[in-house]
């Protein structure tokens, strides 16, 4: 750390800091008064001042961070989550992180159940309106995709969506998302597999479900069974691969930017850590519902 605190670095930090503050000061001063006319030239000048000011402050922050940062050599990605010691038990860190996500999801839900739902009335308040919209959207979507009217299925789908979104957003707080662990995604898809077979057997019975595999001709029976078994595997691998891929891309961005990783990763993270997981959650519940609907359809 000593040899990084060179005179040159201090000079660069000072110059960029002063330049940034000065440019932002100019930007603030050039704000046109009430009576003045705002022309295009003034507008573009103010925009350039703001851009340059922010740029030099960004450079300054990068050089300051460079004093404390340490170089990492090469990208190493662990396919499985690291183990950690939790109250004397040796468990996977993704379990602990998903517990945190569950707490964040469950506590507001319990509070709403205890304090808001008893006060529901015919003239809805804001929270009641939001909750009713969410529940009716989910139940409409479930019925449209899977042709099943069931409160249990609606609850499962909404829980799955909330849990997956909570898990994905842990990455924003620099934790490794639990869904980038194949064990987590595979257990979720196994639950979906159980639901597929439960609803299939409930609607058709054992004989009906078996004979539905042998349609249109009996030769396809083994392939239909195989594709049914492959459904949870493909669900799990899709979610796992997408989350791991997003995580690796963000790791790469942080590594490329090094000490200058201020601000820019936040913008890119909006896509890779927020939008992309939301799409994947939507895909996961849609495919779950589609598989369930396939199992119960009458042909």
């Amino acid at each position, binding site marked *: 750390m000593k040899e990084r605190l060179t005179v040159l670095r201090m000079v660069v930090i000072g110059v960029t800091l002063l330049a940034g503050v000065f440019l932002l000061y100019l930007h603030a001063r050039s704000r046109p008064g009430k009576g003045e006319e705002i022309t295009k030239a003034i507008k573009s000048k103010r925009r350039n001042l703001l851009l340059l000011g922010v740029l030099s402050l960004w450079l300054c922050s990068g050089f300051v961070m460079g004093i404390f940062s340490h170089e990492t050599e090469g990208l*190493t*990605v*662990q*396919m499985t989550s690291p183990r950690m010691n939790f109250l004397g038990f040796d468990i996977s860190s993704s379990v602990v992180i998903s517990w945190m996500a569950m707490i964040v999801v469950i506590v507001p839900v319990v509070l709403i159940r205890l304090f808001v739902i008893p006060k529901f009335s015919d003239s809805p308040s804001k929270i009641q309106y939001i909750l009713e919209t969410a529940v009716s959207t989910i139940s409409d979507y479930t019925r449209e995709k899977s042709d099943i009217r069931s409160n249990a299925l609606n609850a499962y789908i909404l829980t799955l969506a909330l849990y997956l979104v909570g898990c994905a957003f842990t990455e924003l707080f620099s934790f490794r998302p639990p869904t980038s662990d194949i064990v987590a995604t595979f257990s979720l898809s196994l639950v979906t597999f159980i639901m597929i077979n439960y609803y299939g057997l409930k609607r058709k019975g054992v004989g009906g479900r078996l004979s539905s595999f042998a349609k249109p001709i009996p030769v396809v029976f083994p392939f239909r069974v195989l594709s049914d078994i492959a459904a949870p595997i*493909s669900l799990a*691998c*899709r979610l*796992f*691969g*997408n989350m*791991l*891929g997003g995580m*690796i891309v963000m790791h790469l961005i942080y590594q490329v930017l090094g000490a200058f990783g201020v601000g820019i990763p936040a913008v890119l993270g909006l896509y890779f850590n927020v939008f992309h997981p939301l*799409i*994947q959650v*939507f*895909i996961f519940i*849609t*495919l779950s519902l*589609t598989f369930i609907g396939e199992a119960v359809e009458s042909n």
Partner: protein
Amino acid sequence: MNGLAAIGAGIAVFTGVGAGIGMGLATGKAAEAIGRQPEASGKINMILMLGLALTESTAIYGLIVALMIIFTK
């Protein structure tokens, strides 16, 4: 061994070519469909998203295989 593993990972990621072509075709068809029937754009978007996710999964499988080749010892 390490070099061969890198070549294998590269070949595994080639699944992205097929996924790219497929996604391009799907998006093009969706754009055509919306052009023909703009009022059905909501449903078309939904189907497009689902199709893109299914197409993308081939690329994702390739990615997983490549990562496993590189990072698991």
